[in-house]
């Protein structure tokens, strides 16, 4: 199952000649001191070798298209092929980003319509599509909150409150925006401890960052009260849209009292995860934050679509990308949203929640321990394996690896940090009942094996292209490039220029 590095498949002088000019143009006018002395160490391979190598590499991956992928908080639902095909129509794909607006009305109309639909699903009044990932959406949101306070002459508000269950990006974002982080605890029922919140708010509070439903897989029932506490202290509320799939078309962040929201289009609106990106983390805001939205934004006047930029939005927090965010991802989300329509969006949250609650019930009935058994699951839920880990030594990580052998991608492990030995399981709406049943049975089989023969579970995975990897070695004996290994072997691509 091993595939050699592409560098090791080359031979000096081998090329894919149809992909580059037959002869290179003259460079005699460039200063000799600026020219490269030795060619960069790139592979010297044929087109077929390239196609075969990367096709083989693809086959070493688990993916949604090949495996059930219940990775909690990541919403690994089916990515419709239509989104990809239509976003890659030449009329969109071959456009230079600085082409005049008059040449781009079809493209701008898609983005404008997308902005309008995103206002509808959040209840907000303004949208900017530019943030290129959830983390950049968070940055935009907190930067807008800061800009809002500063514009009001209230610059001392530099504290951002986050629950202890929050995703790590929340505190990291607050730091990037020059804010201090204050953590508040979660109560035993999974809701934020509102009394603790009351104690930390004050004239230094810039805002609070919340995910709702929370990372614990439950709806924050006291959200209205939380909003009153934070607003009462002069702070604003930031909605981390990581879990919007759970409430799509059923509750609006604006109505909950949030002032700004980011949405991960690669989660709720099914744009590809692409092996780790590109995503899109659009932001939506209430009226008072609109002047601060990042630019550019698509506007419409007299039926013509146009960019709104610095001169239209002088108070904007600025530009967050070289051109227009991850434009092609925005188009993919647009196609998906039009395919679903309003009714389809409500069905998404309905069936995502149905699948999660069904799977939680099934696992609970089989003896697994939900972290919050008294709560309704949102679109995801947590089970804790701490009793099994204590009794057998088989940990959440061991379960994750054993699932790979059974043909399932593992759920999220060890997040949120405050539930010990946890699996965060998110089946999504696009999985059928038979797949949920098979997944539940796999967990049951692993548990039963753990009780009989813990050592056998700890050997997993056995069927993957590699078995468990030595992370300590990876971090101590850094091997980050092929060149760093080159001293170990002959260099097949070294060739005279």
């Amino acid at each position, binding site marked *: 199952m091993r595939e050699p590095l592409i560098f090791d498949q080359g031979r000096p002088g081998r090329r894919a000649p149809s*992909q580059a000019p037959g002869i290179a143009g003259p460079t005699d*006018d460039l200063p000799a001191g600026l020219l490269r002395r030795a060619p960069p160490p790139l592979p010297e391979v044929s087109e077929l070798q390239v196609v075969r190598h*990367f096709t083989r590499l693809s086959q*070493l991956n688990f*993916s949604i298209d090949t495996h059930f992928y219940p990775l909690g908080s990541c919403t690994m639902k089916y990515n419709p092929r239509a989104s990809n095909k239509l976003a890659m129509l030449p009329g969109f794909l071959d456009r230079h980003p*600085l082409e005049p607006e008059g040449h781009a009305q079809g493209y701008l109309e898609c983005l404008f319509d997308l902005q309008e639909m995103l206002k509808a699903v959040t209840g907000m009044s303004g949208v900017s599509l530019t943030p290129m990932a959830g983390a950049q959406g968070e940055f935009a949101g907190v930067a807008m909150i800061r800009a809002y306070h500063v514009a009001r002459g209230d610059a001392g508000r530099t504290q951002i409150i986050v629950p202890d269950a929050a995703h790590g990006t929340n505190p990291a974002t607050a730091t990037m925006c020059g804010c201090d982080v204050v953590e508040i605890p979660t109560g035993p029922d999974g809701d934020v401890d509102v009394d603790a919140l009351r104690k930390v708010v004050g004239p230094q509070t810039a805002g609070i960052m919340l995910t709702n439903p929370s990372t614990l897989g439950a709806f924050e029932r006291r*959200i209205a009260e939380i909003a009153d506490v934070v607003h009462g202290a002069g702070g604003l509320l930031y909605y981390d849209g990581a879990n919007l799939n759970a409430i799509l078309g059923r*509750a609006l962040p604006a109505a909950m009292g949030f002032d700004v929201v980011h949405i991960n289009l690669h989660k709720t609106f099914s744009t590809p995860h692409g092996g780790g990106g590109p995503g899109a983390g659009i932001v939506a805001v209430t009226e008072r934050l609109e002047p601060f939205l990042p630019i550019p934004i698509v506007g419409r006047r007299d039926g013509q679509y146009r960019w709104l930029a610095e001169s239209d939005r002088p108070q904007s927090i600025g530009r967050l990308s070289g051109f227009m965010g991850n434009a092609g991802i925005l188009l993919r989300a647009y196609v998906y949203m039009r395919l679903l329509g309003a009714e389809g969006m409500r069905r998404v949250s309905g069936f995502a929640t149905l699948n999660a609650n069904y799977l939680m019930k099934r696992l609970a009935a089989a003896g697994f321990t939900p972290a919050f058994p008294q709560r309704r699951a949102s679109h995801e839920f947590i089970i804790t394996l701490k009793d099994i880990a204590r009794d057998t030594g088989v940990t959440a990580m061991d379960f994750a690896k054993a699932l790979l052998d059974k043909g399932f991608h593992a759920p999220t492990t060890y997040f949120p940090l405050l539930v010990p030995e946890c699996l965060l399981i998110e089946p999504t709406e696009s999985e059928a009942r038979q797949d949920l049943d098979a997944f539940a049975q796999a967990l049951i089989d692993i548990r039963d094996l753990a009780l009989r023969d813990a050592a056998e579970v700890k050997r997993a995975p056995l069927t993957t292209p590699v078995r468990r990897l030595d992370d300590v070695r990876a971090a101590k004996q850094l091997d980050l490039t092929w060149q*760093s290994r080159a001293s170990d072997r002959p260099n097949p691509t070294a060739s005279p220029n």
Partner: protein
Amino acid sequence: MPFIPHTPDETSAMLGAIGVRSIEDLFDEIPAKLRVDGLPGVPAGLSEAAITRLMRERAARNMPSLCFLGAGAYEHHIPAAVWEIATRGEFYSAYTPYQAEASQGTLQLIYEYQSMLAGLTGLDVSNASLYDGATAFAEACLMAVRSARGARSRRVLVPRYVNPVWRKVARALLAGQNVELVELAASAGRTELAALAALEGQDFAALAIPYPNFLGGFEPVDELTDWAHARGMLVIAACNPTALALLKPPGEWGAKGADIACGEGQPLGIPLGSGGPYFGFLACRQALVRQMPGRIVGGTVDVEGRPGFTLTLQAREQHIRRSKATSNICTNQGLMVTAATIYLSLLGSEGLRRVAAQCHANTRALVAALTGLGGISAPVTPYFHEAVLTLPRPVAPVLDQLAAAGILGGFDLSADFPELGHGLLVCATEVRTAEDIDTYRRVLAGVLGVAVAA
């Protein structure tokens, strides 16, 4: 129901297993006054056939043009195999390779990418990519401020001819952390070494050097690098990756080489795509690797001693370090890196060098053709694949008339760089032909009212 496989029987059986009557009941923890029962403002769903028709119509309304515009995004030939393979479901629909055993394809590919970028930049290590060139530039500045141990400064010296949008993005991203970008004076399209004298005694964490600069020209990279290093500053190279096939890599600048290189990866197999998604690259010397933001893949062995790949140095990242992370970034631009790695493999060093050299030759031919019309000069030489033309009259109306004739004539420099007069930045990559260039020449002659031989 789009993308939902449940039959009515299955739905009722599942509801029964949960112990509720309807899907609505599953939302009983949401306070009633917060619940909505529809989404006015979202139209009804469409079939795939209907949305296909709609998107084709809209794509057709985007007028195709003959492109002589660069300014940060460049039209290059993209081999058909690049996106055929990059959009295979196993790449397209996988996520971050946290489960390394189930993600060796993505991990090995990133390792190969890191190797290629380290080779192109002449530096030791590369990360797995950032969002785009502008944000990579901002992250490089931040990284330099964190790394510049000797200097306590939070100021980065940035020459005037760094991409103006990158400077705007960096300002937006760095404002909260009190990192200041200080402009370094320039004239005639490049940084003035004489201006450095005025900076003696001031404290900077780093100097950023564009390569080539936004005007397509070359900074005195060796002198600037040595000057900065002699004063305890780090050197950041902001480079075009195509140019690096031809030009001395940043790792070889001056006596010691640049410390960090960053740039826009779009030229490496990523379509213009209306502005994104692209990817940013970031490479550095080994000693700085723990200050690098973003994902990094490393080689290791499994329990049987077989080689494999895994995410490494994760203690830098937000999911572990939280508020003390090097950045809040979690994703890279994985799919774009997949495409770029396939692109670089197909081109190889000789192919990429030919692309770079042909871009340069075509731009020279374009400059010769257009300055030959008379009244137009090219004040910045030498240049790589973009050049400044000074027109005899304001640029914007000229560009409008060219656009009406189906030509993207270039980037109007007059707002960002008024010192250049009626400055127009033009670009001719390897995909432009002699006929294309002649078309531009004839149409521009018409716009300017100059008589030309047919």
